[in-house]
């Protein structure tokens, strides 16, 4: 899923300060699961903002609304009236959601309330880890299903650097060394010989590096 983190309240205050009537628009899919922008977070943020602005003696009206997904028109439409009623909308969706909402409401300022961080996994309650960077050219079969392009800080594809210690990354001792995990997996699978194979430079053209991507499913297009 897409993992995001709500922006600090001070930053959100600055972003919405120019407006009198704002809508806080939640998204009920990914950002709900990672506690950044679901219905509950919308409610908490609304109260916090009201309090903060009241303390500053600043008048602001806040309306709350949450849709199932901000990245699909079908759900965005449900928020149309609320968006129209307010001077600006603070979206608590990921960056894709913010943009999808913005292009439906040409004259309404749509503002980001969440920092979209990565595509990841819920490792355990409250802990999310980045595992995929959407390179468009998956090679997990070679690497024992651990992605070095995403999980190695130096994107090494031919084995570990010389800096990892006790299975942890030299860049952050809290992060597992991807190559340590790859070697563990390949050992368990009896495929350690994969490590001897030279891996050619990655073709980055299907990634964001080749420009913004589009996926067309002809069989689904109406």
């Amino acid at each position, binding site marked *: 899923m897409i993992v995001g983190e709500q922006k600090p309240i001070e930053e959100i205050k600055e972003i919405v300060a120019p407006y009198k009537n704002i809508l806080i628009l939640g998204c009920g899919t990914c950002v709900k699961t990672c506690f950044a922008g679901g219905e509950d977070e919308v409610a908490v943020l609304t109260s916090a903002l009201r309090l903060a602005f009241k303390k500053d003696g600043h008048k602001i009206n806040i309306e709350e609304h949450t849709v199932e997904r901000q990245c699909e028109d079908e759900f965005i439409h449900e928020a149309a009236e609320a968006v129209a009623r307010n001077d600006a909308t603070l979206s608590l969706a990921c960056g894709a959601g913010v943009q999808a909402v913005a292009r439906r409401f040409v004259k309404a300022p749509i503002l980001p309330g969440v920092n979209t961080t990565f595509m990841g996994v819920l490792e355990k309650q409250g802990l999310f880890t980045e595992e995929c960077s959407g390179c468009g050219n998956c090679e997990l079969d070679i690497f024992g299903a651990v992605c070095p392009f995403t999980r190695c*800080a130096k994107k090494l594809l031919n084995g*570990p650097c010389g800096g990892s*210690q006790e299975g942890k990354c030299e*860049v952050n001792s809290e992060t597992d060394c991807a190559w340590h995990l790859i070697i563990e997996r390949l050992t368990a699978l009896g495929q350690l010989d994969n490590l001897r194979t030279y891996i050619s*430079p990655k073709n980055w053209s299907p990634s964001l590096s080749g420009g913004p991507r589009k996926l067309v499913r002809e069989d689904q297009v109406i």
Partner: protein
Amino acid sequence: MSTQSPGRLEKILSSGGFAVTAECGPPRGASADVVRKKGELLKGLVDAVNVTDNQTAIVRMSSISASTHLLQMGLEPVMQMVTRDRNRIALQSDILGAYSLGIRNILCLTGDHQSFGSQPDAMNVFDIDSMNLIRMVLTMRSEGRDMSGFELNVPPRMFIGAAANPFADPFEYRVIRLAKKIDAGADFIQTQCVYNMDRFKEWMRLAREEGLTEKVHILAGITPLKSAGMARYMDRRVAGMDVPEAIIKRMAGVAKDQAIEEGLKICLETIAELREVDGVHGIHIMAIEWEEIVGRIVEEAGLLPRP
């Protein structure tokens, strides 16, 4: 492993000599004089000088230009090149440029992560890794083509170096990685600083068993210690460095004003022991911002005059 137009380092290694290289870190400024001063301290004492490429991710004069300054003084540079800051297009272009300037040796590295440097906000590149860089330089040299397959009118015939860290985790993988670098095209290897001689010898034994020492020239890394504090810092804080407790204690066991002499003694003992290790074809002295000491090390180790 011939480049057809060998530099001094290649000639010495291919004729079975024991090579000595040192390191020169370019300045954090645009002064060629700083490079020349460092060059003067090394001239005639070593066979080639490694010029680092924005080491520890701190902005310094480019490796190509500092290498060129040394070249103009009659020193032979080993241009270090990291994949952190340049994509494959820029790397190939700079290799062509470096060769056109007379640079004949390259050390292919991935480079320290930018988070360790002075500008952690920077975006990194890592389009390719050090293994790919080695293969790229080999392809340019032996096939005379760039990565797109385009024929180069004058191929850069670089003598190709790579780094190896015998002390890093996981140990069992270290020799496999060395083999991969040799297969990719490395002619010579410069290792991480050797303090843990037992582990280094074990790594060399495994390398010999795989026949790797027949295929590549291994230059063992040497860094003179200045103090017990430095030894401890390197062991604990520098990623991939292994300084055994016995060495730290030895440095701590002498009076402060004797620490440099003790460090030098350790250095000379290490060099003497390395010269006896089958497959070690030279040493690489990394006296970080302490080029003055290189002359004493080389002289007292009995490695003068250089060929």
